């Protein structure tokens, strides 16, 4: 042993480290497919558009459609609802950001930025309370928008949060008007 030790030490250490490192790399690489499989699969990712025919939604009526497994509220607002939303000063809002996927991330939460582009009657929001994911109840609450039964968050007629604990306005999904009477979400 004594004869071989001095000559062999560095090479042996290198060998041990290289083997150990290789094993660690292999184990880490092996973990990846098993983690990667958790992400939404290709068929789920493809199911991303929902079309809504607006002709059957009367003024004042709010319908719920499903997009990516989540409820989306499509609301044909009355003049009164719109006027109410427009009156609100930005400074009075808990969350002054539009949260509109179709606009820049820092767009202010004016009613124009919340309602459909060129179609101010229409408000399209994801029906998930931004607090902890419950579905708020429409046409209710002090602000005439939504009231969340879980923890009491309230939203106004533009889907903006007016009373906590929800931190942000209801999200607006990416959508566009295919025609005046049809929108395509996603």
């Amino acid at each position, binding site marked *: 042993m004594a004869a071989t030790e001095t000559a062999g030490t560095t090479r042996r250490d290198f060998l041990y480290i290289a083997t150990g490192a290789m094993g660690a790399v*292999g184990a880490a*690489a092996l973990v990846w497919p098993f983690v990667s499989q958790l992400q939404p699969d290709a068929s789920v990712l*493809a199911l991303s558009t929902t079309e809504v025919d607006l002709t059957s939604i009367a003024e004042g009526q709010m319908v719920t459609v499903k997009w990516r497994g989540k409820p989306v509220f499509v609301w044909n607002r009355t003049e009164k609802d719109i006027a109410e939303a427009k009156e609100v000063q930005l400074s009075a809002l808990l969350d002054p950001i539009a949260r509109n996927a179709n606009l820049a991330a820092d767009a202010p939460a004016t009613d124009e930025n919340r309602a459909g582009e060129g179609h101010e009657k229409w408000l399209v929001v994801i029906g998930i309370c931004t607090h902890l994911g419950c579905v708020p109840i429409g046409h209710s609450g002090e602000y005439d928008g939504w009231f969340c039964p879980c923890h009491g968050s309230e939203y106004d007629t533009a889907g903006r949060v007016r009373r906590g604990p929800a931190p942000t306005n209801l999200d607006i999904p990416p959508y566009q008007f295919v025609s005046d009477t049809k929108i395509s979400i996603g």
Partner: protein
Amino acid sequence: MSTTMSFRSSLLRPLAVAALAFGLAAPALAAEGAPKPPREEWSFAGPFGTFDQAQVQRGFQVFKEVCASCHAAHLFSFRNLAQPGGPSFSEAQAKAVAEGYQVQDGPNDAGDMFDRPGRLSDRWPSPFPNEQAARASNGGAYPPDFSTLAKARTYEVGFPGFLIDIFTQYQENGVDYIHALLVGYEEPPEGFALPEGAHYNKYFPGHAIKMPQPLSDGQVTYTDGTPETLDQYSRDVTAFMMWMAEPHLEARKRLGFQVMIFLIIFAGLLYFTKKKVWKSVGH
């Protein structure tokens, strides 16, 4: 070297053979009376095989224009056309294909089903609503679904071929058979009693197949100057079917090569580490 060494190698050899011989459950398509399909050259065969994109695109054209009028492919979605490792159409091209089809959706608010143009997320529409309807329209025979067909067909390779296939990595039995079948239509030999409504095929088990010869020269118009022959159509559509049955074949072989390289280097390192560790111990 010694008794220990020799008994070790004598233990090794038969066991290796045993391990291989147990693999002989070669799945068998009934091959009674049918000759073995010849083995073809496929671009996707072997450890570095990849699909020939142009060929798979042509194959899709043949499938779309000919096969799909009777055969379903219920696991195939329009979006698959645009994914890497196959025909790899652009997303716009795949969308255009999808929009060319009417897909049933619904129910709408009135509770009715309705047709709309296809989207990428839609499955390939089946030509018949169910198996019974397919049989009724095809003289009682059910045109098999194409989704996994290239992997669902094979023929018995026999000894020792099935062992050699392990080393040559031959897995193209299904496409060999399908290609042979497509070009295997012939006049029945003298004295062969062909049942009513059947056709004679050299490679079909029992020879009497209900499907009339589906492809013939000049039937599909290719835009890229590829010869418009039966043989070419058959190869193209078969390659397409292989992709449809195994859409991640390229990724599998690519990852396989990386893993192999890694494992071989790792095994080498372990071998030398093991030698070092055991150096001072006779064993």
